[in-house]
């Protein structure tokens, strides 16, 4: 297992005072809290910061950690010295706490590896029951999956108590149904699919939905934005052109005299609605006039002719030039 430099994780010196440690921890906890931070590794960082605080805020644990010596560097291969973990019985961790901490932590302070303290507590209270913890996982789906609905396979690491009351992490695969019309940021609650209880009910699993960036569409709630390139003559003369939507290609009538950045609405062509009203979102088509990259002689002549005929038009009139 890897050695963890708890001082480095909190960004404090080895001789930092209790107040320094508390201040550093609070600051980092706010920064990396998974409900606050949008950074992709926020959850891992938050756990790491909590683990470092758990050790450094407690003088006994800090002394034990310091006794490992200063020769270590973060990431070094670590083997616990003989006698490490002697204080196990003094620490009581719940399964959820133990599961949050690293193997490195467990090898020194118990917890994940040997739940001596926890087993002892259970023996003393035969009626001890504990509901499993709720878990939250992020799930990334495509816009197409949100439109049509989909089944997704999830792999989860679940902490579990084995027969001797020790915590083990178990890999689990779940097939989850994603309902059509789900929108970004919404959660799916899977009752009883969270952490296992100890004599109590299991916790719930909450899946929070994120959309993969899409090359063509952008999503706002149930509405879909799409940029639609059109030719100058389609914009000038009007035309009926194909537009891609999540439900398939549709025909859109471009009015004569259309401009770049003009937005046209395709009602009900966004993500499907849910509930009793089932109001679907709309698709908004933003026009973008695109010129042919090259002109042959005939086209050049036609443009020159156009230039003469529309000579009075000044597209920069608003700029006063």
């Amino acid at each position: 297992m890897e050695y963890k430099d708890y001082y480095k994780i909190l960004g404090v010196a080895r001789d930092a005072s209790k107040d320094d440690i508390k201040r550093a921890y609070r600051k980092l906890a706010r920064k990396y809290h998974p409900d606050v931070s949008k950074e992709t590794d926020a959850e891992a960082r938050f756990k790491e910061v909590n683990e470092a605080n758990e050790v450094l805020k407690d003088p006994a644990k800090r002394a034990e950690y310091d006794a490992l010596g200063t020769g270590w560097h973060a990431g070094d291969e670590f083997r616990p010295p003989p006698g490490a973990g002697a204080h196990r019985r003094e620490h009581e961790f719940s399964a959820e706490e133990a599961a949050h901490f690293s193997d490195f932590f467990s090898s020194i302070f118990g917890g994940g590896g040997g739940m001596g303290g926890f087993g002892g507590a259970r023996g003393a209270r035969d009626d001890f029951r504990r509901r499993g913890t709720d878990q939250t996982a992020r799930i990334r789906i495509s816009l197409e999956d949100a439109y049509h609905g989909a089944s997704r396979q999830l792999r989860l690491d679940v902490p579990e108590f084995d027969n001797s009351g020790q915590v083990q992490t178990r890999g689990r695969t779940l097939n989850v149904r994603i309902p059509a019309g789900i929108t970004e940021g919404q959660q799916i609650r899977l009752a009883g699919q969270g952490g296992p209880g100890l004599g109590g009910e299991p916790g719930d699993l909450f899946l929070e939905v994120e959309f993969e960036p899409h090359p063509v569409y952008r999503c706002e709630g149930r509405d879909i934005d799409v940029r639609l390139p059109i030719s100058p003559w389609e914009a000038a003369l009007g035309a009926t052109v194909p537009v891609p939507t999540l439900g398939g290609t549709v025909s859109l009538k471009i009015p004569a005299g259309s401009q770049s950045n003009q937005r046209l609405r395709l009602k009900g062509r966004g993500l499907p609605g849910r509930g009793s009203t089932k109001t679907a979102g709309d698709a908004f088509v933003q026009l973008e006039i695109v010129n042919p990259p090259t002109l042959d002689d005939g086209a050049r002549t036609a443009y020159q002719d156009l230039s003469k005929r529309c000579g009075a038009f000044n597209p920069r009139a608003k700029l006063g030039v």
Partner: protein
Amino acid sequence: MAQRQTGIEGVLLDEHTVVSITELTQVCGVDVDQILLMVSEGVLQPTDGAQPEQWHFTGIEVRRARRALRLQRDLELNLSGTALALDLLDEIEQLRRRVRALEHHLGSMRD
């Protein structure tokens, strides 16, 4: 590592999913008093009903309640601090969406 294969359908916590105050306490693992406090602080907004027993909360509020409880617990915030944090987080989320929309509209200039 043992593996288990299951096919399951969850409950989508959107504006069409509605729970009672009792169900909300079960999902959040808190007692009624904590929910009442969050409502009185404006953290949670029940949909209707004069008495708490008649209140309903949408899936959106369920998510908000859980988020509030996590923030309170992990960052040792008091209730009004939690309310402020949630409001600011909502506002940041709106601004992020707005930035993404503007970036999308400007996309042609960056290609």
